[in-house]
Each structure stands twice: as C-alpha cells, then as structure tokens.
C-alpha cells in the first residue's frame, strides 16, 4: 500500500474510530477498508461530500456470498457488500466493504447519497437476497419477478440441468404475464395530472430503436415524455455465475459475449485481472498486440454505433457503408484471431497465437483506406442539417450529473470533462502511445457523436504506432500459470507433457486474493473484479459494465422530450443490452 492509501485509511480511522473494522491489502492496491454496517451511510457521505478531494462517483456496488469461502478475510461475514468509489481529484479508487453476518442480511440503502445506487442495490437484492432499508423500489431487476431463490448465492444451482426440465403450463404463463404487466402505482407514477390522463406506452422489448431486448415503459403526456421506466434483464445470461463454474482459462470465451461488439475488449480486463492475481508479467509484444486488437475493435464497435445511430434518425444509407467498413475490419480480425465477433483470443499470460504472416499489409491497407471514409461520413452524417436538428441540444447533461450517475466513456467526455482511463490510469503500455482525448462541450446527443467519431481517428493513430513499432519477442509469458503453455515447450518429454495435461485440464491455480482491473472499453469503463479462493476457478466474478449505469441514467435525460428524441438519446448513449444485463 502506498502512503496516500495509508493516509486515507488513517483519516477514516481518526474520524470514525470503531466503525472502521480493518484495512485489507489487495492485489490491485486500492485502499480497502471494512466498515461496520451501522455506519456505512455516514462513511460514504463523508467520502462523497466532506473529505478533501472527494470520491464523487459510485463506480460499483456489489456483494459476495462468503459462505463457501476458505480464505476468509472477515471471519463472521456471510454476505459482504462491496462499494467501489472513484475520486477524479485523486485519480484513485477506494473500496469499502461491509460484513453482514445475519441469515437475513440487511443494510441501509444509500440511494439518498447516490441516486445511482438504486439499480445496483436492486441487483444485489435480486442476486443475493440482501435487503436495503429505505430503498424506494426494492424489487428484482434482472431475474423474472417469479424467480425462486437468489442466483448468486452459493447454494443456488449454476446449471439448468440441476433444476429439472423447464415447463411452462398455462397457469404459470399467466402468472409470468401478469408479473410483466406495468402497474404505474407500483412505481409511484400517477395516472393523470390535473387536466389530462397520461398514456403508458411499452417501447420494446421488441423494438428496432431499442437495439436489443429492452423494454421502456413511457409515461406520456401527449407526445412528450413525463417519465421512463426501463425494464431490463431480458438479455441476462448469468455471466457472473458462470464465472464461478468455469476454470480461469475456459471462462475467456464467455467474456467475449458480455459486450459482443467489443470482442477482445472484454477479454482484456479479465485476463489482466487474472494476471494481476497471479503476478504474471506480459512480454512487450503481447502488450502491443493486445492494444492493436482492442483499438481495431473500438473502431468496429463505433462503426456499428455510427450506422445505427444515423439509421435511428432516419438515414438509411450510412448503416450499409459503416457495416461494409466493419466487414473489412473483421477481415483483419479473422486473419489474426480466427473468428470475427467472438475472437476469444487473449490468454492468461499473453495472446493465443502470434500475428500471422502478412498482417502488416492488411493493417496498413485499412489505415490508408479508412480516413477517406470517415471524411465521407462526416459530410453525409455529421454535417447533415436534419441530423443536427435532431441531435443538437437533445439529451443534455452536465459533467456533475454524469459523475453523479456513474457515466464513463464518450458520454462523460462529451460534457467537456477530459477523462480517459487509457491516459489517466494507463494499462498494458498505453502510456507509451501518442493520442489525444477528444472532448466536446455541451453534453448533448450531437456531442457524444462527434466525440466517438474523433475517437475513431485517434484509434487509427494508435494502430499506426502499433504497426510501426511492433516489438519482437514472445507472444506469451513463460510464467507457469500461462494457459495453455507455449506448445513448443510442452510435448518434449513426459514432464512437460504432464505439465500440459495439468494446465489444460484444471488450469492454473491462482493464489487467493482479489483484484479489480478495468479498461477504457468501447462503451465506457469496463472492469472485472475477481476474487480467488486459491483454486482453479474464480470464487466471485463481478463484471462492472458501463452500459448498466448508462441505462439507468436514460430516464433522467429523457424527461420532457418527445418519443422521437428518446430514440436519438438511446442511440447516442450507445449501449448493448448484453452489456447491461450480463
């Protein structure tokens, strides 16, 4: 732990005395303190509002079921609530843990301190059965309302085959449907104001403008939006639960599918987190390969956003053109990784294979080709009158609001706040690259769009530097936990073969500990918080995705606009439902 970490911990100890139970060293070196449940609200309020250089953002809120754990840190805790706060002034995180030792765990809700805690607390309630006192709408958020049990508890089965065959008799179907019926009273929404009745409209779950299975219930006064209630969870696949079932190595393909437009951008934080836990150093070549692939995927993801955003606003052509360019990118990705959208290509300790012969030419061709296209899109989309009319001044928010609600990525930079984790907390060698952070001023739909367009240009710069300076050397580390070990070394004699067998069957054993690693992904800051119990699989896999808080923020920025504006707002937020629901 560094001195500043100790400072903040001793400051908290001085201020709150007994309420601070202990400090815990972690592999990510974030200051981590355990706080007594009775005082959590005070401590968080202090960290947010009173301390100098405050922790303004509630970055993540989750829980851990400790009941099956061997290497416990707090002996009596059955469920631990974990708050992760981010301070922009300090450029650092702080992790606050609250032990709950009762069988009916309950803790004070912090929705009064951070409104963004609302969905996070609902998720913890849904997944772990923890009650939050004082929460305005404590109900399930990802699982269907009729679900029995809380999936992330250790006693909940992880496989469908453990739960008996699925059946949907008529009465159950009725019950499910009844559960989905929207009852405005339950959400505290009134059915009418003084002179008019409101209309409640379902947008989705099947609607082209929602870009996936998302249901938004709109409270409408004529055409203008009074309130929006998002209903998420239709895309929930239990990615976090699967993380506890798979080995460290065989979970990598699952990460691909969390934010399916980002490809390797999902492997990235996961493998870096495992590497941090295991203490693996990555060879330079692997680092640069990882960066190059990630930036290719950033462009690819932004192209999907670009085309579909324009289409949301009534332009048919751009989407065909951007998808054509994306296809070119997929050509490169396929040549390197062997697949297109789900490359599954980063490995613990490096990447799966070396770059193929001729990769330079493919990348160079793309670098020559793409800027022209970007210019054409600028003319066609960004400088189009109708496009501007529909995006400028729509869905505006300020930097303070963005931070309050946990917004990261282009949505934050569009408000004029220069914050990019590639620059501020560089990982994998980003500090050695030259690129700018595009920022805009107004935080409206248009600004979010220009920021993303400029980001594509910056990504091209980074890729160019990768191309010019690709280091020689191995593409995988020779650390024993590298999975699978380099094949050259494996089939020499019986010893190395046994090593290969162990490594491929159970995979590496990762020492007990916990770490969080995040990357500046395509949609915002995406991070994995892994807890190892000293075994061949993760004890708890928490995936902090950017789209989740962004979706929670949508109602706040849509009130007062019309339905057509809402579609512009949704498009400009750039989320993926698989990233919201995991």
């Amino acid at each position: 732990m560094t001195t500043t970490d100790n400072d903040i911990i001793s400051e908290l100890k001085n201020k709150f005395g007994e309420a601070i139970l202990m400090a815990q060293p972690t592999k990510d070196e974030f200051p981590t303190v355990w706080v007594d449940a009775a005082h959590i609200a005070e401590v968080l309020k202090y960290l947010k509002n009173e301390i100098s250089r405050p922790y303004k953002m509630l970055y993540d809120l989750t829980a851990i079921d400790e009941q099956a754990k061997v290497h416990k840190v707090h002996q009596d805790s059955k469920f631990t609530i974990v708050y992760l706060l981010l301070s922009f002034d300090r450029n650092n995180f702080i992790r606050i843990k609250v032990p709950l030792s009762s069988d009916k765990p309950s803790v004070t809700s912090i929705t009064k301190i951070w409104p963004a805690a609302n969905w996070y607390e609902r998720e913890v309630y849904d997944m772990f059965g923890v009650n939050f006192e004082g929460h305005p709408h404590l109900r399930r958020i990802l699982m269907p309302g009729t679900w029995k049990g809380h999936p992330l508890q250790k006693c909940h089965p992880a496989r469908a085959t453990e739960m008996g065959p699925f059946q949907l008799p008529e009465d159950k179907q009725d019950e499910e449907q009844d559960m989905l019926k929207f009852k405005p009273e339950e959400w505290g929404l009134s059915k009418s104001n003084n002179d008019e009745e409101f209309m409640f409209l379902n947008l989705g779950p099947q609607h082209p403008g929602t870009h996936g299975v998302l249901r938004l219930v709109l409270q409408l006064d004529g055409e203008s939006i009074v309130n929006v209630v998002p209903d998420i969870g239709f895309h929930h696949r239990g990615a976090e639960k699967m993380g506890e079932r798979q080995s460290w190595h065989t979970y990598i393909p699952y990460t691909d599918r969390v934010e399916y437009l980002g490809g390797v951008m999902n492997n990235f934080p996961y493998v870096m987190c495992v590497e941090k836990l295991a203490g693996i150093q990555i060879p330079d070549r692997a680092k640069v390969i990882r960066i190059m692939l990630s930036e290719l995927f950033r462009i690819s993801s932004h192209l999907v956003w670009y085309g579909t955003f324009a289409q949301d606003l009534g332009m048919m052509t751009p989407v065909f053109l951007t998808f054509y360019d994306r296809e070119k990118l997929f050509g490169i990705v396929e040549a390197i990784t062997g697949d297109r959208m789900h490359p599954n290509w980063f490995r613990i300790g490096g990447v799966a294979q070396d770059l193929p012969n001729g990769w330079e030419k493919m990348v160079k061709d793309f670098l020559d080709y793409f800027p022209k296209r970007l210019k054409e899109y600028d003319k066609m989309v960004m400088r189009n009158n109708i496009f501007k009319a529909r995006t400028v001044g729509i869905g505006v928010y300020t930097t303070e609001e963005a931070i309050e609600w946990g917004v990261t990525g282009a949505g934050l930079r569009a408000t004029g706040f220069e914050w990019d984790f590639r620059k501020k907390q560089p990982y994998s060698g980003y500090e050695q690259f030259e690129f700018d952070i595009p920022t805009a001023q107004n935080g409206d739909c248009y600004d979010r769009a220009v920021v993303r367009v400029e980001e594509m240009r910056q990504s091209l710069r980074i890729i160019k530097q990768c191309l010019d300076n690709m280091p020689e050397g191995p593409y995988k580390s020779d650390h024993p936990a590298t999975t699978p070990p380099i094949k050259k070394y494996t089939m020499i004699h019986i010893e190395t073969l046994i090593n290969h067998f162990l490594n491929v069957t159970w995979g590496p054993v990762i020492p007990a500990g916990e770490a969080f690693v995040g990357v500046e992904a395509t949609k915002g800051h995406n991070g994995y918080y892994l807890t190892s119990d000293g075994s061949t699989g993760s004890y708890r896999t928490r995936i902090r995705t950017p789209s989740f808080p962004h979706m929670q923020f949508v109602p706040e920025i849509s009130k007062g606009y019309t339905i057509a504006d809402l579609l512009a707002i949704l498009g400009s937020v750039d989320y993926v439902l698989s990233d919201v629901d995991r």
Partner: protein
Amino acid sequence: MQLTQRAKHVDRHPMTWIERLYFWNILKGMLITLRHLFKRKATINFPEQKRSFSSVFRGLHVLNRDEEGRERCTACGLCAVACPAEAITMEAAERLPGEEQLYREEKYAAKYEINMLRCIFCGLCEEACPKDAIYLSQTFAPSNYSRKGFIYKKDDMLIPNPLTEPETYKKALGERPAKMIGNQ
C-alpha cells in the same frame, strides 16, 4: 516520443448556409447513394459464390490423420475437458494387434462426437490437443433438419485418408499446415 497529454476539442463549427439548405441535404444524400451504384459490389451471391476464409478460421472440426493415414487421436480426453461448452463426448478403445495401420497410438477413440449446437467454435479443443489430432477448418456449420443431425460423429469429421484419397485429403486439409506450424 513526445506524448500529448492534452484533450482535443472536437469540431463544432456552425454550418454554412448551403449546408443548412433542406433540399441540398436530400440531394447530397441521393448523390452519394447514386455514386455507390457504380462502385464494386460489397456483397457476394451466397451460396453460389463463397467467400474465402483466413487460414486460422475456426469452422467445423476435422479429426486428423498422420502421413501414413492413421488416426492421430488417442482419446486422452483433453479436448473434452478443455471445452467450455461441454460439447465433446468420446469413448476410448484399445488398439488390437493388426490395427496398427488404422490408429497411431495404442489407445484410440472408438466413438467421438461433437454437438455442434453446443459448440461455440472457440478453438480451445485444438489448443488443448497434444496430438494435433483435432483442428477447426475453414468451413462453417451447414443447416440441418433435426437436432440429432447436429451431433457430428467421428465419420463426419475424420479427414480422408492421404494414402488412398490424396486429392480430397489435400482439400480437407486446406491451408492448415501453415497454421499448425505457426501454432507450435
């Protein structure tokens, strides 16, 4: 290298009056569309035409033979445990005297099945195999009428014998040797 730690303000300059004209915008869009009519088509006529795949493409599996036409697989089961989707099942058998021409090792896979509906084509089986006995080829899953049809048996995946059918063997192998060398 000089690093720029600066933020870049994106371009927000107002539009010129020409750009603000409504019909000009419509016309401009039309012109762009029109121009693309004369460009090379981006699509191909599948299934008459097929696109080429990269040599490392992860398509349907092939069970490999060695130069003498013997099956390489020794039914060690590594592919099955490495498979995240649990798509592979196999039954091992012992090679009998006289079968040396058929199987390379003393133990072989009597039954080997992959459920292509479960498979996510991640390629971890190929990475796990210590015998170069399985690899993913440059084809992708065809359609089928029944779920059963997607459970590929050993015969569906075994590569043709290089001694008896050299032509088809070559074709099935594709550009794979290059990839395997790259993999080592």
